[in-house]
């Protein structure tokens, strides 16, 4: 389901106009992004946990050319589904 469909369905379910829903989704996404930037953890019960993980620097090799690269450390966002959700799909 792409973004458009998602927003239209969301607008329907929460009795909002599509514009409203779009704005709100944008806002929500912004909030999640901001929190993740501050390395906060967001837990949505029944859904999962949005978290950030640190990746250490590593040496990677291009298998074809054999060229070695030094990949710098980075912070990545991650999502862990909750047990309830996992069971739903099992």
């Amino acid at each position, binding site marked *: *389901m792409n*973004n458009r469909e*998602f927003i239209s*369905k*969301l607008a329907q*379910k*929460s009795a*909002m106009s599509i514009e409203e829903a779009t*704005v*709100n*989704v*944008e*806002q*929500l*996404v*912004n*909030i*999640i*992004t901001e*929190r*993740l*930037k*501050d*390395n*906060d*953890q*967001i*837990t*949505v*019960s*029944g*859904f*999962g946990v949005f978290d950030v993980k640190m*990746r*250490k*620097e*590593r*040496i*990677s*090799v291009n*298998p074809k050319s*054999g*060229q*070695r*690269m*030094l*990949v*710098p*450390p*980075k*912070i*990545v*966002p*991650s*999502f862990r*589904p909750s047990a309830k*959700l*996992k069971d739903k*799909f*099992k």
Partner: protein
Amino acid sequence: MDAKLNHSDLSALLAKHADISVAKSELFSKTFFELIIEGLEQEGIVKINGLGTFKMIDVASRSSVNVNTGEKFEIKGHKKLTFIPADTLKDKVNKPFAIFEPVEIIDEYTDDAECNDDECASDDVYINEAESTNSVTDSNIIENEQPVVISPEQQNDITTESLPDTISQQENKTENLQSEAQEKAPHSEGSRKNHKYAIISLLTLAVLLLCGAIYYSNKNTFPVSDGKPTADKLSVDTQQQSGESSDTVNNQQQVIEDEPESYKFKLIDQLAQQPLSVITLKDTLLYSADGQITTHRVGADETLTKISHIYYNDKRLWPYIVKYNNMSDHNRLAIGMELIIPKLKPVDNPQR
């Protein structure tokens, strides 16, 4: 920073930013996540701009072992929920590290392509350029070094291991190593002249090393005359001229320094005039050995003076131990050495 938020926190923030009531935002966010789940159930994939993509992935069944009983069992194939963050989200989260970029590592080894030049075999005059490029697979590859390379998924650390696969992949890269290795095992492929020069230089090097070794080993034995131990009795006798122990010298100095200056010079004159055999110091100790008390095994951090103190209650008697063990060098005490500890009987000082 590093806080934990839950659903209600999220809704509260949304209410504030979107300027809607808390109740409305709570409902909204609840619906938001429920809809994601619904979308996943129905279509298996949900994409949200700016956030990312939630996707159901099929996981194949695999066999596994029960950790307690050790029996095998099957983990059935199932679906797994994954989240792929959107690029904007990734960039924003990684902002502190955004300045870094992957960097090519330039190895010491050079490529096949580069190695055809003269520069490749720079230090080794003996190595023919033709050799270095071709003889990769023949000789031992990584004699000296070098660990390299990591599989990205498995290890995020910098620890590098020498994986045989990757090393074999890099065979072509180890040209310089080859040339180093070749110095030790020159190839017959190369010209005969180079071969000869290599051998000659190695021989001269070996001869020089031998000479150095002999010289140094001789250096150690020179101070001791006749190869006998340095100290016999703690007296200045002609027989023991070569080995004045440090103790004796100290004693002598102490005796002289105690006296007033004028007397010191008189004494020195006297000493100088007397034949050496007559000079014996006031506190000279004289012992004779009469059988052995025991053998002592040298442990860590043990010195001759300590050992002497243990057995004789007198640190100054260590030269006797040296003598009766026929030690060539009293400085070289090894751990585990077996020393004969002689039984010492004091002999009356003939001079006093």
